[in-house]
C-alpha cells in the first residue's frame, strides 16, 4: 500500500506490464524444514537460489557491487538484473512473473535515465532511482538486523532457564462458613425426610372430575329451566385458594360436557364468552 516504487503515469501507457506492482508479489514459505529448501524443486524458487522476490535479487546484486548501498550505480544494477534474467531465460529456467515485471520496469527506468530528460515527467527518473535505492537500503538494513538478532545468545539454545523450577503457587485456602441455624435446619430436614413414613394422601386443592360429575348431575336433577353453570359450583369460604375455584369451574365444565355427551344434559351459550347455560335433557325434546 505504501509502495513508493509505483511507476509514474507515463509508464502506465508506455508499458502495460509495468503497471503491475513490481514489488509485493511472491508469497513466502514459513517454517523451513532443516536444509530442505533446496531439495524440493519448487517452481517458485526456480533455481534462483531461493531469492524471495525481485527486490531480494536486486539487493543481492547490489551487494556484489561491493560499495555502500548509498553509492551503488542504479544503471549497473539494472544491467546486472536484466543480464541475470536473460541468462536464466537462455537456460530455459522458468521465471516467476514478478521477476519479469521487475525486469520490464527496470528496462523502462534505464531508458528514462539514458534518454534526454523530459522536464514534464513527474516523478523523474532520478526520483525513481533514488526511491529504489532507499528501498534496497531499508531491506538491507532489516536483513542485517535480523541476522544480528538471530546470532544473539538465545534462551533455550545458548542460555537456559532453570530446568526444573519448583514453581511458585498461590494456594487458595478455603475458610468454610456455616451457621448453627444451617446445621440444625439441615438435621431437621434429614429427620423430616426419613421420619417413619406415614403416608397421608393429602387432598389436593382440586375438584376432581368424578366429584364434579356427581355434583352437577345431582344439582341439575331434572331441572327444566336453564341454569348458569357457575351457579352449580361449590361455594368456598372467603379467602379460599383461588386455584380451587378455577379447578371447580374447569371440572364442572368438563362434567357438563360429559353429561351432554351422555344425553343427560343440554348446553347452550348465546355468544362467545357468554354464560354457559345448562338444563336437564328434555325427554326426547
Amino acid at each position, binding site marked *: 500500500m505504501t509502495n513508493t516504487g509505483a511507476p509514474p503515469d507515463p509508464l502506465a501507457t508506455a508499458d502495460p506490464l509495468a503497471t503491475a506492482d513490481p514489488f509485493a508479489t511472491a508469497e513466502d514459505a514459513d517454517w523451513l524444514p532443516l536444509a530442505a529448501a533446496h531439495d524440493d524443486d519448487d517452481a517458485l524458487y526456480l533455481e534462483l537460489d531461493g531469492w524471495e522476490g525481485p527486490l531480494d535479487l536486486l539487493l543481492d546484486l547490489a551487494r556484489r557491487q561491493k560499495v555502500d548501498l548509498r553509492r551503488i550505480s542504479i544503471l549497473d544494477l539494472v544491467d546486472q538484473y536484466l543480464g541475470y534474467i536473460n541468462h536464466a531465460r537462455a537456460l530455459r529456467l522458468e521465471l516467476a512473473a514478478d521477476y519479469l515485471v521487475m525486469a520490464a520496469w527496470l528496462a523502462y527506468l534505464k531508458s528514462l535515465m539514458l534518454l534526454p530528460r523530459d522536464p514534464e515527467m513527474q516523478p523523474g527518473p532520478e526520483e525513481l532511482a533514488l526511491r529504489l535505492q532507499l528501498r534496497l537500503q531499508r531491506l538491507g538494513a532489516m536483513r542485517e538486523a535480523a541476522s544480528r538478532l538471530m546470532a544473539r545468545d538465545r534462551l533455550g539454545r545458548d542460555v537456559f532457564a532453570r530446568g526444573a523450577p519448583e514453581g511458585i*503457587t498461590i494456594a487458595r485456602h478455603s475458610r468454610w*462458613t456455616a451457621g448453627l441455624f444451617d446445621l440444625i435446619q439441615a438435621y431437621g430436614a434429614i429427620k423430616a425426610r426419613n421420619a417413619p413414613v406415614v403416608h397421608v394422601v393429602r387432598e389436593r386443592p382440586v375438584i376432581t372430575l368424578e366429584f364434579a360429575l356427581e355434583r352437577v348431575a345431582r344439582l341439575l336433577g331434572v331441572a327444566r329451566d336453564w341454569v348458569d353453570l357457575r351457579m352449580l359450583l361449590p361455594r368456598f369460604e372467603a379467602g379460599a385458594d383461588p386455584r380451587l375455584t378455577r379447578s371447580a369451574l374447569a371440572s364442572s365444565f368438563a362434567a357438563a360436557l360429559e353429561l351432554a355427551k351422555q344425553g343427560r344434559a343440554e348446553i347452550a351459550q348465546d355468544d362467545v364468552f357468554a354464560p354457559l347455560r345448562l338444563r336437564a335433557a328434555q325427554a326426547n325434546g
Partner: protein
Amino acid sequence: MADPDDDLVRAVEATLFASDMPLTPAEIALHLGGAAVHDAIEQLAAHYAGRGVHLVERGGRWHFQTAPDLAHLLRREREEPRRLSRAAIEALAIIAYHEPVSRAEIEAIRGVQTARGTLDVLMEAGWVHIAGRRESPGRPTIYATTPAFLAHFGLASRRDLPGIDELRAAGLLDPVDSAYAALAGVMPGPESDE
C-alpha cells in the same frame, strides 16, 4: 574468574541449574567432557549453604532446591470464605447429633451416598476428626466433631444442640410436603358442602 577451577565450578553450576532432573557427578562430568567435578560440587554446595537456594544431594544425585526455611514462600496462601455444600452440612449435622458415626451410618441416615470429598472438606475445615474404628465387621472408620466445631458454632458442648422436641416445635421436623403447602398458602382440601 580466569582461574580454570572457577570455570569448572561455573560450568557445574550452570549444568545443574539447567538440568531438568537431579544429576550424579558422573553425569555432570559426562556433560563437561569428563572433568573431575567432585571438588567443584563441594565448593558449590558450600557456596550455596547460606543462600536462598541450596545445592543438595539425594541418593547420589545433586540438584538445587529452595532453602528449607524459605519453602513456605513457594506457596502463598490466600484465604477465601466458602459456604459448605448441602451434602457437607448434612453430614456434619449427622456427625454432631450421632457421633461417633461411620460413613455407612451417615449414608443410612441421609438416605444418599456421601462423596468421599464431603468428609474431607469437614476434616479440612477442622470440624470433624477420625475418632477411631468401630469394633464391628469391617472395622469402619468412625467420625466425631472437634472442639473447633463447638467453637465455630458457638456451642459450649454438644448438649447445647437443640433436641428433637425443640426441632419439632420450631417446625423443622415437618414433612417437606406440608412445609411446602404452608408456604404456598393452600387450604387443606375442599370442604364437603351440602
